[in-house]
């Protein structure tokens, strides 16, 4: 998966947990939880959704690395390359 495809995948998953949000307005370096006002269940659903779409399992210890859009892209890209 390319960086562009990964970003589109992440945004597609975000759209399912925050359907009212205008994702084009997201600051890619800000915390998604603040940008989209998602709670812990939404965030956990986000992790599950990413797993379903990419097959990449994200352990809880790595959650701090996926809290922003750019962080999430970099993390998944690294995992995809490693596998």
């Amino acid at each position, binding site marked *: 998966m390319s960086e562009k495809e990964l970003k589109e995948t992440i945004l597609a998953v975000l759209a399912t947990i925050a359907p009212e949000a*205008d994702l084009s307005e997201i600051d890619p370096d800000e915390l998604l939880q*603040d*940008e989209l*006002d998602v709670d812990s269940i939404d965030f*956990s*659903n986000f992790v*599950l959704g990413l797993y379903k779409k990419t097959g990449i399992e994200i352990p*809880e210890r*790595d959650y*701090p690395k996926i809290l922003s859009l750019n962080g999430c892209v970099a993390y998944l890209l690294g995992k995809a390359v490693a596998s």
Partner: protein
Amino acid sequence: MSPINENKYLTPRVNWVSPKTFPDLNEHEIHIWRVSLSCEAAKIAELEPLLSPDELSKADRFVFDKDRWSYIAGRGTLRNILSHYVFADPVMLEFAYAKNGKPALGGRHAASQLKFNLTHAQDLMLVAVSSTEELGIDIESLRDVAYDEMAEQFFSDEEVAALRSVPKHLQTEAFFSCWTQKEAYIKALGEGLSYPLKQFTVSFLPNRPAALLKTSHSTQASRWTMSRFIPCAGYLGALAVRGHSWRYKHWDWKD
């Protein structure tokens, strides 16, 4: 164990009281404040000047006005509530944040030892306050979630088995009862989302009291008090605090 009531969950509904004067916080009490974050423009204009520069900066980063207003209402009201406990001007309060973002009173009021935690969902915020013990509180709005999948991923084996034992029509509420207790516990510890949820077990069956049953480290589960409650229709909440024999006081904030 008594059989599960087939028709309803046994989560207690909170009876909120509007205090006539600001209540004293005794040593063995926990105050829980219910705050509506749905405010008129005039109220937002009143609360906004209470916020610190970093809070105002955060408020300005919200994409939607409703989220910005909700944040200002929450922060401003939190300052008003806490200021009563430490006899301070709400503008003068400073917050310090632990590595996982848990707020505490900082600056000159850090010495007050006042402990608090807050949670919000949609237009509802709860603030829990203790004079002695760290605590954690969580609320969730009840909604459709893929609770089977989420439980498999985030609950302990015992919790997954317990959830499956609940009658189907009570499983959503059971899921949220488990989730809010787990969140309240990690918030009380000062941990964040990266704390492994599978490594501890809570009691959430409809016919059993809320409790921390098992942890994976040295923290003794029996030292904790867990409680679950319905703050108002459509929501479920839980509170975790070390120690026992707490008296809960539920106050409605009507400022």
